[in-house]
């Protein structure tokens, strides 16, 4: 075996100590700037943290690609869904007149909006690409109200860091950080390709987050909660996705 001199041992030891303390400092800096995702624990936690932190640094103001009308997928793709609940069918029978979006949590004025009210807010339309984890994808024109507008209407408190959103299906919920929630392309969609949002695509209301994978664009939204920590929701991992083995942050 080769001889290891004392000098090399000392230098090696110093380098190792410096490396380990640099990691500690980096971790604290990441925590301070909100670069640590809720699913940072466990076997995949380190990978998820590195992905989230690096993408958050790269993509703070980036915009997802918007396409021309001729590139809209025809026919629009609606994937298979679990059977709809009785509650949903009742609302559907009433033409969704009684559908409500309640907003609570760290907001100044908790509120409950009907579809009619949401449609009276300034609307935005964008032609973006929805890509599923499973591999399929399609392009459609989505029409809706920017989430930032809804959040402004209820008055988000300054210590809020996440917006959790819930589907009418109690097991289906997700969350995004404030950077994504306030992003101009994040919105609650009620229209698609010039018509009402079809039930198969999440009608009457779905979240649209074009810079992340499709599973963050949850369908049938009924409830938003603004919060500063995802620890109190489900298993505290940020969404039901990490509980199923997927990532909370899905920009991949």
């Amino acid at each position, binding site marked *: 075996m080769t001889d290891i001199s004392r000098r090399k041992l000392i230098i090696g030891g110093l380098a190792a100590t410096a490396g380990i303390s640099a990691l500690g400092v980096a971790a604290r800096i990441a925590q301070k700037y909100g670069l640590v995702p809720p699913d940072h624990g466990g076997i995949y936690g380190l990978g998820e943290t590195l992905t989230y932190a690096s993408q958050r640094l790269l993509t703070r103001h*980036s915009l997802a690609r918007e396409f021309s009308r001729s590139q809209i997928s025809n026919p629009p793709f609606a994937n298979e869904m679990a059977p709809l609940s009785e509650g949903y069918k009742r609302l559907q029978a009433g033409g969704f007149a009684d559908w409500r979006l309640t907003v609570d949590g760290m907001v100044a004025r908790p509120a409950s909006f009907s579809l009619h009210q949401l449609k009276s807010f300034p609307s935005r339309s964008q032609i973006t690409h929805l890509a599923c984890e499973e591999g399929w994808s399609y392009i459609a024109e989505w029409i809706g109200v920017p989430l930032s507008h809804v959040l402004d209407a209820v008055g988000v408190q300054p210590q809020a860091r996440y917006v959790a959103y819930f589907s009418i299906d109690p097991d289906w919920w997700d969350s995004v950080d404030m950077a994504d929630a306030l992003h101009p392309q994040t919105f609650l969609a009620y229209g698609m390709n010039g018509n009402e949002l079809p039930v198969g695509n999440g009608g009457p209301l779905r979240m649209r987050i074009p810079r*992340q994978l499709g599973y963050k664009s949850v369908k049938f939204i009924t409830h938003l909660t603004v919060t500063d920590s995802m620890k109190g929701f489900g298993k505290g991992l940020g969404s039901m996705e990490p509980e199923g083995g997927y990532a909370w942050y899905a920009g991949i």
Partner: protein
Amino acid sequence: MLQRLSYLFVIFVLFPLVIWTGLAMSPGFVSAFPATVTVFGGQQSARTIHFFVALALVLFLLVHVGMICVAGFRSRMRAMITGRADGTHTERT
């Protein structure tokens, strides 16, 4: 000769391609650098290429490990880790 060509191809073509097409499937990364995916004509094209390249890499891996087993696994692993070629085997150029 074939070995050298295939190694060069794997290191300088297949690996960069598989990483590039992989990034092209990330909505987050692509929002910051759209050219990553537009050069392939879209996310679905990038995905197809990614799968073919991944298949090629798996085939390469099988052939690579197979060759090593045929040529002497232990001595090659020892040489790769310690950097010392074993005197009793002929050096391969």
